[in-house]
């Protein structure tokens, strides 16, 4: 079947706190246990309970890497979800809803945004000539060819209650599961992988498993019986595979990378969307070590310190790094703002420090739970004055893991802060992947003066590469001093103009050394047809959507290349320039307002990337809206000024 057909987009929505996440999680695992691969994306408000959240799970028999606008099956158990998402369902798709809610008027969706409500009212009344109820939404969907399936949640629960002797009130949390079971039935997907998923998620809780399994069976049967006639165009079929797979999120991938890298102290202050990474680490404070077979399992300590603020987080991590630990902090824009002064301190003192920065919608508090790539320029220049830093951006979960290791190696090798750029889209993306391999992984602790001799050791000794052998606090013979002031080779304060020049140049040279040493493969990726006339340039999380769009366009006869820049600083300007010059038309795709990478490239290479496709509504770039935008662009002439900046606006 064509690439397009093998992918199914399942979408579930509901009020925050009503179980949307766990439903999606279980559905995704059910697919995975059936040998399929999934890519899940989560959208939610900065709110604990009541506001609308949704989860999109894309399923296919091959690896997927991006969310999409159109859904094949929409799953709901509240009214707001139907109102907000029904129009996303593709013409032959399906929609699961609670028939009890059919009369619910638009105004009863109390938590809905005013703008959305107004636009829905306009759609229903002015465009469709219907009234403002959920029933009308269903009607309109049906008119478009969408198959709508009323699922009587309450009755099914009652049946379950009766059958198992449980109180109905305590079964409320099962509703979301009924929706999952109903989906499987409609998609003609077998029940067995779903039951396995349940068993895995609730491992150890036999009673819960039993109850939930029964709920699934009941619903599955009910749906199979009730909607035998009405068929969904899309099916989901298990695939035989003996590939090992894990299912995890971006924050978990980064956390695993840190653990593999030997990170032994992470200091953080809670902030969305970075917190999950620290929570994962905190839950794994006892790190398993390889031990010879037969011997008792050994463990190491990973200290996760919740500090009083982000300033304390970065400075505590720096203190730990000085003591010799691989230390990191993890944060998002507002927290990073508070870290800039200490970033400079780590820079001038040549401290190996790792900062994982999860970008989110800015400025200020902005859109705390939405995505954006708005901080690139900020991280490049954060901190007053000039000092070396490395900035690496991951584009998918596998890169998240390996880059999390890489940044520690660089931090220690170049003795300077390294920023690992991530974003909310990556952090909350769920994906099936082959288990990470440590086979090829090597840890590089950089130049160390293990045998420094007292009185002679100079921490900032002059060297060609700019790098001086390092000692750590407490080490015999390697005493040093640090100061945020300009310093001499021993680390004591100096204001001597010549020593100052030398130290500025020494630090700057480390960056040149890094630029020379780091292999090109870690600096950027080139995908697609390298000789294509049109080149897409991007960085970070849009990677998945771009790769999918490339496939779609290829299927339609358009050949493009895609340059994914990974090392943003020091930017591999010369290599990029050579590649960029080969293309006739260059298009930057970025999840921000101004096209920050495009600006950086122009600054560093002189090449103006004439066409920008940007998105800044807090939602990730969706592969289908991107391919549409690209097609439209390709239909214009390269110099056409009306197409210089295309703004993507999809997403709910």
């Amino acid at each position, binding site marked *: 079947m064509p690439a397009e057909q093998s992918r199914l987009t399942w979408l579930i929505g509901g009020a925050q706190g009503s179980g949307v996440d766990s439903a999606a999680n279980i559905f995704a695992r059910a697919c995975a246990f059936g040998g399929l691969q999934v890519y899940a994306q989560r959208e939610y408000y900065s709110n604990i309970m009541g506001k609308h959240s949704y989860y999109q799970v894309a399923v296919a028999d091959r690896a997927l890497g991006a969310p999409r606008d159109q859904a094949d099956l929409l799953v709901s158990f509240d009214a707001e979800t139907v109102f907000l998402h029904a129009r996303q369902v593709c013409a032959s798709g399906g929609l699961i809803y609670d028939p009890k809610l059919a009369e619910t008027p638009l105004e009863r969706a109390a938590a809905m945004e005013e703008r959305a409500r107004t636009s829905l009212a306009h759609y229903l009344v002015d465009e469709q000539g219907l009234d403002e109820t959920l029933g009308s939404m269903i009607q309109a969907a049906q008119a478009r060819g969408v198959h709508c399936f009323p699922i009587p949640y309450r009755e099914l629960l009652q049946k379950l209650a009766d059958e198992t002797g449980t109180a109905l009130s305590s079964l409320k949390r099962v509703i979301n599961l009924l929706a999952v079971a109903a989906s499987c039935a409609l998609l003609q997907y077998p029940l067995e992988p779903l039951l396995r998923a349940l068993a895995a998620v609730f491992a150890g809780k036999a009673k819960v498993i039993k109850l939930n399994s029964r709920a699934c069976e009941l619903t599955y049967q009910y749906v199979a019986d009730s909607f035998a006639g009405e068929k969904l165009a899309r099916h989901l079929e298990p695939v035989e595979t003996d590939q090992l797979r894990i299912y995890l999120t971006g924050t978990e991938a980064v956390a695993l990378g840190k653990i593999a890298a030997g990170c032994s102290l992470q200091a953080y202050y809670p902030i969305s969307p970075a917190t999950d990474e620290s929570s994962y680490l905190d839950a794994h404070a006892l790190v398993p070590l*390889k031990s010879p077979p037969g011997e008792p399992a050994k463990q190491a300590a990973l200290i996760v310190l919740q500090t009083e603020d982000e*300033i304390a987080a970065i400075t505590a991590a720096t*203190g730990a790094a000085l*003591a010799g630990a691989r230390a990191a902090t993890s944060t998002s824009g507002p927290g990073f703002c508070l870290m800039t002064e200490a970033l400079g301190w780590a820079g001038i003192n040549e401290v190996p420090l790792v900062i994982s920065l999860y970008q989110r919608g800015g400025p200020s508090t902005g859109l705390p739970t939405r995505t954006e790539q708005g901080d690139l320029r900020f991280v490049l220049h954060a901190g007053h004055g000039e000092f070396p830093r490395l900035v690496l951006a991951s584009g998918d979960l596998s890169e998240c893991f390996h880059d999390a290791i890489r940044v520690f190696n660089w931090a220690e090798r170049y003795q300077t802060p390294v920023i690992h750029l991530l974003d909310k889209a990556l952090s909350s993306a769920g994906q099936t992947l082959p288990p990470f391999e*440590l086979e090829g992984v090597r*840890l590089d602790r950089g130049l160390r003066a293990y045998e420094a001799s007292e009185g002679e050791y100079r921490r900032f000794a002059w060297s060609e590469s700019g790098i001086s052998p390092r000692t750590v606090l407490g080490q*015999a013979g390697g*005493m040093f*001093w640090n100061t945020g002031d300009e310093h001499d080779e021993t*680390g004591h304060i100096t204001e001597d103009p010549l020593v100052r020049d030398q130290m500025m140049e020494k630090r700057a040279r480390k960056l040149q050394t890094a630029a020379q040493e780091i292999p090109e493969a870690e600096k950027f990726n080139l995908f697609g047809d390298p000789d294509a006339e049109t080149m897409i340039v991007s960085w970070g999380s849009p990677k998945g959507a771009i790769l999918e769009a490339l496939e779609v366009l290829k299927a339609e006869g358009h050949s493009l290349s895609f340059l994914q820049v990974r090392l943003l600083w020091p930017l591999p300007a010369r290599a990029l320039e050579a590649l960029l010059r080969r293309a006739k038309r260059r298009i930057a795709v970025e999840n921000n307002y101004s096209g920050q990478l495009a600006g950086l490239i122009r600054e560093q290479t002189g090449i103006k990337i004439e066409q920008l496709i940007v998105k800044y509504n807090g939602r990730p770039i969706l592969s289908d809206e991107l391919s549409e935008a690209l097609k439209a662009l390709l239909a214009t002439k390269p110099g056409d000024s009306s197409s210089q900046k295309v703004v993507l606006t999809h997403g709910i």
Partner: protein
Amino acid sequence: MAYKLSDFKTEVHVDWCPGCGDYGILSSIQMALAGLNVPPQRTAIFSGIGCSGKTTHYVKAYGVHTLHGRVLPYATGAKLANPNLLVIAVGGDGDGLGIGAGHFIGAGRRNLDITYVLFNNGVYGLTKGQASPTLKLGMQTKGLSQPNPNEGVNPLMLALAAGYTFMARGYAFNVPELVKLIRQGVEHHGSSFIEVLQPCPTYNNLNTRDWYGGLDRPDPETGRAQPRVYSLADTGYDPLLTPEMSEEQTHELLGRYVARTSEWGERIPVGVFLINRTTSTYEERISRRIPFYTQQTPAERVIADEAGRPTVDLSPLLAELRVS
């Protein structure tokens, strides 16, 4: 092995003003260290920014001169990573209780085994004499255009609220006593806070050495100066708080603490105000979860074999995520 004072001195030119109280504090720290029998290389001193912040450069031990107000979190990170380091933090009153007040509270709550010495001169020395957070309301030191419109914060009261478990106050020009206090602070298990009254002859023309010494109020009979600074110990004050004490006894001690720490002006007590033995240290709390914490410290952990292969075994973690 016994250490000498000179083992803890660097050759860096000391650039404080003549008559600055910092000299006394520096000597006291060096002498306390020399007496502790800990090798200089196992000691790390952290400082904030200010005249006081330069202290680290004058002490021969690992010296980390950090950022304004951030000395405690830097020190915290290092101590957490290597609990076997002897960690001392020093800094000015502006540094610690102005811009750094939030960290002062945070560190007190943790009760990590570190010692914090606060140089209290009532002014921002290095930026030329603005009021520091400890300067009392209405005081007008040399550098101010008007009397201080803020109430001065009492460092020892704040330390109590924050949760430090050893609280003392010393005087920069009573070096022998200060040496003892610092030593006691370092030997205490948990977070120790030592406020040092530090004359700044250049900018604080009110709380001078003469003023602390009471030169302005000679005894009418003997004509001798009557120092304002007096020893708490001499009054029979008992600073010990133990788990055995009743709620009433505890309240009595706290009441005394508040009364004594609020004395200022005519009589200013120095000495140990509180030793709280009723709680655990942060290190102990970590060790409950990670029993080998102080033996295999995070800082010294071996993370790779000689070929650079990670020592970590990811498989149990990957197994948790398995979907096949």
